[in-house]
C-alpha cells in the first residue's frame, strides 16, 4: 500500500527521471555509428602499440576526411578502433598497409564497411521495429485484459504499459548518450537490439502486476444482472459489476503482493547480465550495459510508475464522469 499511498511522490519522481533523461539525450545526444550512417570501421591490434599521434599522422595524407581513432584495449586485442568514411577496395588496401606498417606485428582483426543506403535502410527499419513492438504490446495487453471492464477499459492497460515502456527506453537511451559522450560509444545495431529486448522483457513485470490487479478486481466485485426485453421479444441479460472495495486499495494490495516476484524476476536477469558484463566478451560489453540499465529501469517503472499511474487515471476518470450507481 505504501507505493499507492505515496503515488504522487513516485509519479513526480518518474517525471523527474523522464525530464532528466530527456535533457541528457538532448545535451549529449546519441552518437550514430557506421551501421546507420554508412562508413568503415577498422580494428587493428599490435603487440607493441604505436602512439595515437603516430596513427593520426599516418592516416592524414590518405585523404580520409577526419578519421575517428579510439583506443581498444581488451585482454585479447590491443590497438585502435578507427572509424572513417565508406572506403573503396583500393583505399582500404592503402589504409590497411599504412596501419600495419606502424607499431609491431599489426594485424587487422576486424573490418566493416557499410554503404550509406544500407545504413539509411537500417535506420528506417529500427524506427519501424520499435514502433511495431510498441503497437503489438498495446494490442496484446488490451486483448489479454479484455473483460476487466470496470473501472478502466483494457485499452488503458495497454496504453499504460506502453507509456511505462517509454520510460524504460528513455533511461537506457540517456545512458547511451552519456556513454557516447564520455567513452565514445556509438549507436550500432546491437544497441537497437538491446532496446527491442528491453521492450519485450520490461513489459513482463508490468504484466505480472496488472495480472494481479485483474485477479483482485474479479475477486472483489458483485454481479448485477438485468434482463432487457428488446424489440421483438428477444431477452438479453446485461451484466454489471460493482467493486466491493475501492480501486486504489485493490491495486495497492496487488502491488505489495507481487513485489517479491517483481524484484526476483528482474534480479535473476540482472545476475545473468552482471556475470556477462564482468566475464563476457568485450564485443558485447556496451550491449550488456545498456541491457542492465534497461532491466533496472523496467523493474523500477513497473512497481513505482505503472500501478500509481493506473490509480491516478481511475480517480481522474471517476471525477470527470461519476460512476452511475447500479440499477436495482
Amino acid at each position, binding site marked *: 500500500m505504501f507505493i499507492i499511498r505515496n503515488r504522487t511522490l513516485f509519479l513526480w519522481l518518474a517525471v523527474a527521471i523522464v525530464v532528466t533523461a530527456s535533457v541528457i539525450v538532448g545535451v549529449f545526444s546519441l552518437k550514430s555509428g557506421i551501421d546507420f550512417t554508412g562508413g568503415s570501421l577498422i580494428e587493428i591490434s599490435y603487440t607493441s602499440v604505436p602512439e595515437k599521434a603516430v596513427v593520426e599522422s599516418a592516416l592524414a595524407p590518405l585523404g580520409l576526411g577526419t578519421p575517428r581513432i579510439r583506443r581498444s584495449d581488451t585482454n*585479447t586485442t590491443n590497438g585502435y578502433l578507427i572509424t572513417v568514411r565508406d572506403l573503396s577496395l583500393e583505399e582500404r588496401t592503402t589504409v590497411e598497409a599504412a596501419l600495419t606498417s606502424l607499431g609491431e606485428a599489426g594485424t587487422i582483426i576486424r*573490418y566493416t564497411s557499410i554503404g550509406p543506403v544500407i545504413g539509411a535502410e537500417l535506420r528506417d527499419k529500427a524506427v519501424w521495429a520499435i514502433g511495431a513492438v510498441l503497437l503489438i504490446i498495446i494490442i496484446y495487453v488490451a486483448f489479454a485484459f479484455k473483460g476487466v471492464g470496470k473501472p478502466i477499459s483494457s485499452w488503458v492497460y495497454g496504453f499504460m504499459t506502453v507509456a511505462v515502456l517509454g520510460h524504460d527506453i528513455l533511461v537506457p537511451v540517456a545512458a547511451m548518450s552519456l556513454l557516447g559522450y564520455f567513452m565514445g560509444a556509438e549507436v550500432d545495431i546491437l544497441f537497437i537490439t538491446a532496446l527491442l*529486448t528491453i521492450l519485450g522483457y520490461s513489459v513482463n513485470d508490468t504484466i*505480472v502486476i496488472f495480472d494481479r490487479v485483474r485477479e483482485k478486481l474479479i475477486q472483489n466485485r458483485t454481479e448485477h444482472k438485468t434482463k432487457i426485453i428488446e424489440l421483438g421479444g428477444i431477452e438479453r441479460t446485461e451484466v454489471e459489476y460493482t467493486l466491493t472495495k475501492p480501486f486504489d486499495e485493490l491495486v495497492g494490495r496487488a502491488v505489495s503482493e507481487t513485489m517479491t516476484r517483481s524484484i526476483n524476476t528482474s534480479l535473476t536477469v540482472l545476475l*545473468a547480465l552482471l556475470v556477462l558484463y564482468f566475464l*563476457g566478451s568485450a564485443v558485447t560489453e556496451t550491449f550488456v550495459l545498456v541491457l542492465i540499465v534497461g532491466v533496472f529501469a523496467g523493474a523500477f517503472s513497473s512497481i513505482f510508475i505503472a500501478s500509481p499511474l493506473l490509480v491516478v487515471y481511475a480517480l481522474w476518470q471517476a471525477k470527470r464522469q461519476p460512476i452511475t450507481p447500479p440499477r436495482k
Partner: protein
Amino acid sequence: MTDLYTETKQETFIRRFWALVTLVVLIGVGWFVYQNATTENAHFPFKLGLDLAGGSHLVYEADVSKVAPNEIADLMDVLRDVIERRINVFGVSEPIVQVEESSFVSEVKQHRLVVELPGVTDVAAAVAEIGKTPLLEFKLIDDEALLKQETTANRLASTSTNEVSSASIVATTSGKLANSPFIDTGLTGRYLTSAALEFAGGNGGQLANEPIVSIVFNTEGAELFERITREHTSERLAIFLDGEMISAPNINEPIIGGKAVISGGFTPEEARSLAQNLNFGALPVPITLVSTQTIDATLGASVIEKSVLAGAVGLLVISLFMIGWYRVPGIIASIALTLYVIINCAIFMLIPVTLTAAGLAGFVLSLGMAVDANVLVFERLKEEFRSGKGSRAAAHEGFKRAWSAIRDGNVTSLLSAIVLFWFGTSLIKGFALVLGIGIIISMVSALMLTRVFLLSLPDVKKSDGGIWPFLFGTGLKK
C-alpha cells in the same frame, strides 16, 4: 480442498517413475550435446556465425533498372548461381550466397546479393575473384546517334590533351544518356551455355590465328539471337564485356543455331581467361559492392571462451540464488535450468542455429529469464502453502494461478523477438532466434519439467512441523 489432490500410492509411483524417465532421457540428450561439442567432425556441431568463426560478409547491390520487374526474381537466382559457382572454385567451406531485397519500409527498392565466406579474411582477394565474373551484353548500334556522339566526343577529346577513344567514353556513359547509340537487346551472358578459346581462320574480317572466344547460347538465347540478327540484318551488334565495348561486328545474315564469336584483339591468355570466366558464368546484371565485413578468427575464439565461462558462472549464480531463496523448489528449478541449457544446445545443433557473439550473450541473458516463470509459480506456491495447503496442492494452485501472467509475459517477449528477427542483419537474426527459442523452451522447462519433478516430491503440510515448512518456505523468513 486438499482432498482434490490426494493421490493413491500407485499414482505417486507412476508420477515418480515418469519423472525419472524424463530425467534419464534428458541426461541422454546432454551426453549427445557433449559428444557433438567436443569431438571433431561431429555430425551436429554448433554452427558458428562469421563473427565467431572469422570470415567475410559481403553485400552486393544488383542493378536491375534495365530488367522487366517480373524477370527480376529469376535473374537474381541466376546471379546467385553464378556467384556460387565462382566461389566454389576457390574452395571455401560452406559459403552462403543469398538473394535479399531491401525491406518494405525503405524508400529505395534494392535487390542485393549477400555473400558469406567463413574463414576467408583476405577479402580483397575474395572480392577480386568474385569481381572476375564477367558481365557480357549484346547491344545494337544506332549509327546516327553514334555519329552525333562521336562528334561531341571528338570535340571533348580535342579540347582535352588526353587521347580518349570515343567508344569507351560512350560505352561507360551509355546507360545515362537519353538517346544512347546503344540499344539493349536483352541478350546477355545469362543465356550462355559454354565458351571456348579458338583461333580464327582468317575469314570474316578477322586476322588469321587471332585468338577468339566462341560462345554457344542456350535454346532461349539462340532464339533471341536469331530474332535479333534477322530483324537487324546489316546493322552492327556490339559486344560489351563489363561495360566496355570490345567489338562491334556487322550482322551479315540471320544467325541460326545460337553460336557467336567474340573477337577484339585479345592475347591468347586474355582470350583463355575470358572463356574460362564465361564458362563459370557471366553475370546477368551488373553488381556493385556496398558493404563489407571481415572478422579475424582470433577475435571469435576469445568471445566463445568468455561466453562459455559467463554461461557456466551465470548458471551457477542463478541456481544458488534460486536454492537460497526458494529452497527445495529452488533445487528443482536449478535442475530444470540445467536441463534448459541442455535442450537449447541440442536444438542449436539440430536446426542448426547460427551462433553469434550477440546470440551467446542472449543465451546467457535467457538463463535469467528462464527462471522467471519459476519465480512466479513458487511465489504463488508459497502463498498457498502458508495458508495451510499441502505442498502438492499448493504446487498445483501455483502452476494454475501463475499461468496467465507467465503466458502474457512470454507472448510479448516472443513477439518482440519476432520483430527483432525481421529487423536484424544476419548477426542479429542469430540473437533473435536464440532469444525466441529460449522463451519457448523456458516455458517447457519452467512449467512442464518443474511440475513433473515438484509433484513427485512427498506431500507435506505446514502443520506437519519439523524441517518441512522451512524447506518449502522462501526468502529470509523461516
